[in-house]
């Protein structure tokens, strides 16, 4: 265990992040990059971008609360050290996505009311399931919920958004690239550290799988809300093609995008949960 954990040290983190892919960035993007003028000028598109960014802020706030809360119940120093880097990563994500809200025209004094107005209630419930485990000091369930379920979801959502933004909004795409690199590291820690703990505590399986089922339910309900109940505006007809997992995101309908995202995230969950010795539990389909 100690060998793999040495890959998650602060020293590695310093070399990979501040001195690596974040070097030269300002709030996650390159100096001089800005939100596209067309987006800022179109009220519908701007509001959609604010709403989307609020979901990212809400998710990252939950991740910040969870990772900081897990430091104190980590069973060894190496896990504490990794979770400390993750705490800082998540705080950075909160900061850069809040900064995007400001860049989109949200006033600083309106930040909390904007988050409260647009945060998806199912995403909030998703976070509450996880934070209940963290508050109870349950390290194994907390890391599965945080580093496999929440981070696994964020990883795919960010990848899809990055693919969609690469041509249309390089500033936002660059911001997402840094967060994707972080999420990859967090998921890797979760898979590597928790497998051995699940083996030592097989009695925890039932409870953790139940938590995963509940979180997956709220995640799918949030996807359904975002894509089907308040679908994003169609891309302009001259928008460049953006492909993700073989699907042209520019031409896909909201329902197709929801299906693609849900299938991808669940596929990833199955693979990752399997690696740590857990079975994916399919939740009831949200109404």
């Amino acid at each position, binding site marked *: 265990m100690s060998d793999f954990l040495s890959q998650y040290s602060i020293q590695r983190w310093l070399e990979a992040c*501040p001195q690596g892919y974040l070097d030269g960035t300002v709030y996650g993007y390159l100096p001089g990059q800005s939100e596209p003028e067309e987006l800022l000028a179109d009220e519908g598109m701007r509001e959609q971008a604010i709403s989307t960014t609020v979901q990212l802020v809400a998710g990252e706030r939950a991740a910040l609360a969870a990772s900081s809360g897990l430091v104190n119940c980590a069973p060894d120093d190496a896990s504490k050290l990794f979770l400390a880097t993750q705490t*800082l990563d998540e705080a950075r994500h909160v900061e850069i996505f809040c900064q995007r809200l400001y860049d989109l025209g949200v006033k600083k004094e309106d930040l909390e009311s904007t988050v409260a107005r647009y945060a998806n209630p199912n995403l909030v419930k998703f976070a509450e399931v996880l934070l209940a485990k963290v508050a109870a000091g349950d390290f194994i369930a907390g890391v599965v919920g945080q580093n496999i379920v929440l981070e696994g979801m964020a990883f795919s959502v960010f990848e899809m958004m990055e693919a969609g933004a690469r041509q249309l909004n390089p500033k936002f795409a660059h911001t997402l690239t840094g967060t994707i690199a972080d999420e990859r590291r967090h998921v890797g820690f979760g898979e590597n550290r928790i497998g051995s703990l699940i083996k030592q505590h097989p009695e925890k399986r039932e409870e953790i799988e139940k938590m995963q089922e509940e979180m997956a339910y709220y995640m799918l309900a949030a996807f359904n809300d975002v894509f089907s109940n308040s679908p994003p505006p169609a891309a302009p007809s001259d928008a460049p093609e953006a492909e993700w997992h073989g699907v042209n995101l520019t031409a896909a309908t909201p329902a197709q995008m929801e299906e693609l995202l849900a299938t991808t995230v669940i596929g990833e969950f199955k693979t990752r949960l399997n690696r740590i010795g857990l079975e994916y539990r399919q939740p009831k389909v949200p109404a």
Partner: protein
Amino acid sequence: MTPASAGDIELHDLRDQQFLDEVHSFQFWFDSVEGYLTDRPYGRDADVAVPVLEPELADRLVTTLCNYCLGETAALDGASSLVHDAPTRNAKIFLATQVADEARHLEVFRYRLGELGIADPEAEIERRGNQALVEFRGELLDMIAAGDWPAAVFAQNVVLETLEYTVFRFHADNADEVTRQMLRGVVADERRHSGFGENHLGRWLATEPSGRQRLQAVRQRLDPLVAAIFSGALDDIGFAPADRPPLARDYVEAIDRLGLTA
């Protein structure tokens, strides 16, 4: 690194909220630590030679570092637990940077223990740990568990950080080159952390009439532990009672700045 950050603006020209937005941000942390962390593996210059110490000196250093690890673990557990209760987003983000700082300190001290031949640092820390530090950690975590944010910030960011700042700074002046470089980097962080504590509590005390009395009571409870920690640290570093520097001065000054002198 960012145009609106440490090097390019005069912080004290900023309005109150702007000042807090700036100094408690990840970006500000990023700029602050860049100078002394970049290309400094485990907190020292890459090319500095690791000195061979006399056995007695090495053994004293091991005990000292074990207690530093204990203090940094308390600070890591404390800062991470405080993120949840922080009353503002700025405070949450600042505390997240502090979590990473404390973890970094723990890592560099453990690395140095490894260089001194300690194969199982956790067992060694357990064996050589100063009981007053263990009790201090317990007091701090109890305050956090009770949701007493001002008391916990006082214990963590004023008392513990000032204590560490004072001991590390003094030790750095009397240490081998590797330990000295390592400690100087840590001291720069501790100064930022105690600055947050004093600034935050100063604002709170200005609006909370009973606050001073509450924190004085906390101070009185912690004072005997602080004295025992200072004394233990000087024993470990190897100072005879007659030659001891007045280490408590920084601590008393920090308490005075908050108006908490009994």
